[in-house]
Structures are given as C-alpha cells and as structure tokens.
C-alpha cells in the first residue's frame, strides 16, 4: 500500500483517549502556524491555525499550543476517534517570506 516502507513518527492512541502531536519549527520570524490533517489518498486538510500573538487556540476537539520561546507547536486532540487516523503536519509562515513551509508529518493511528 501507500505506506509500505514509510517510517513517519507514529503515535498509536486508544479510541477515546487524548492525543498530543508535537512540532518544532525553525524560523524565529514565523508568525503564523497551521495544523493540517492528511488522510490516505487526499490532500492536506486545514484543522486549526494560530498567530504568534497568541499561545493557545481551541477548536472543536482540538487545541493548538504555541511556545515561541522554544519554537514549539503542539496539537491536542480530545477523545480521539477512528476518523482521526491520518498524517498530521504543522506548517509555518511569515509575512516576510510569503510561503507556507511544512514540517515532517506525524502518523496518528487510532486503535478501536
């Protein structure tokens, strides 16, 4: 299948538990951050975003935390469901460079 030989960091989580996915970004000038979810055979899908003037933002079942001091971003998924199984990407951009740079993906596998 598509994932044969693919060795992404993988988080296996029991259905109903909370998931935390971490991301370290590189550009200290980045001021906008996004989490994307990519399911097999589909394009990245927007989950939640956060600007650098905030350190926390909540959506439906998801929370993004931003720590600019250590250049760290995390995505928390509450009550993980089988439909949350996917590859998750963090992405960063700045007003200076006009481009969205993606981090390495993290595979989340939800165990029913």
């Amino acid at each position: 299948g598509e994932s044969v030989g693919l060795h992404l960091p993988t988080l296996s989580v029991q259905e109903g538990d909370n998931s935390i996915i971490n991301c370290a970004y590189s550009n200290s000038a980045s001021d906008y951050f996004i989490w994307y979810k990519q399911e097999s055979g589909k394009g990245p899908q927007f989950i939640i975003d956060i600007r650098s003037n905030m350190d926390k933002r909540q959506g439906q079942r998801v929370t993004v935390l931003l720590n600019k001091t250590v250049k760290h971003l995390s995505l928390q998924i509450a009550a993980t469901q089988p439909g949350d199984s996917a590859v998750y990407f963090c992405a960063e951009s700045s007003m200076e460079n006009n481009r969205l740079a993606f981090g390495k993906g993290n595979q989340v596998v939800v165990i029913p």
Partner: protein
Amino acid sequence: DTAVSQTPKYLVTQMGNDKSIKCEQNLGHDTMYWYKQDSKKFLKIMFSYNNKELIINETVPNRFSPKSPDKAHLNLHINSLELGDSAVYFCASSQGVGDNSPLHFGNGTRLTVT
C-alpha cells in the same frame, strides 16, 4: 462543488514524455500554488501565482513550467519527465499572499514515471 480540483488524479507515463496537470479553484482566491510531496510525505512548495503573476519560484528544474490563464486556474506542465519526478503533486489556493491565510489543497495527482 469541490473547492480545489485537479486532474488527473493518477498519471502513469514513461521517461522523456511531456505531461500536464490541471488545477482549478472556485473559492475566489487570488493566490494558487503547486506543492510536491515525496515518498516520505515531505511537502515542498514549487510555485506560487498571485492574480496570474508568478511570485514564488523555488529551485525547480526548468522542465517544470506553470501557467495561469486566469486567477482560478494554475496548470503545471512537465517536459522530458524523469524517474525522480515521480511524486504526488498538490495544487492549493489561498485568499491572498503574505496575509497569513490558510491554504486549501486539492486531492493531489500521483505521477508515476517508468
């Protein structure tokens, strides 16, 4: 009513051939992009157009030529295909440029060069 649609979804071709991938967005966005996703799922920007003008051109071989006939369309033409071009190519669009708005992606074109 797909927001960003690209065709074809799968493209299998031989080395040396020329092929095109088409992309259309109906979101009324001003900016469109092409990204390449390799076998390790790494996503890298290739090109960006704003209102039909090229604004980002990463280090991509000249064999890749984007064309934007209008702001709703951004096509990608690839000449003299090579084995290393095999990847999934994603089209995306966003409201503006440099305004920190999220990108909306199509479902990708899986290109296999044999």
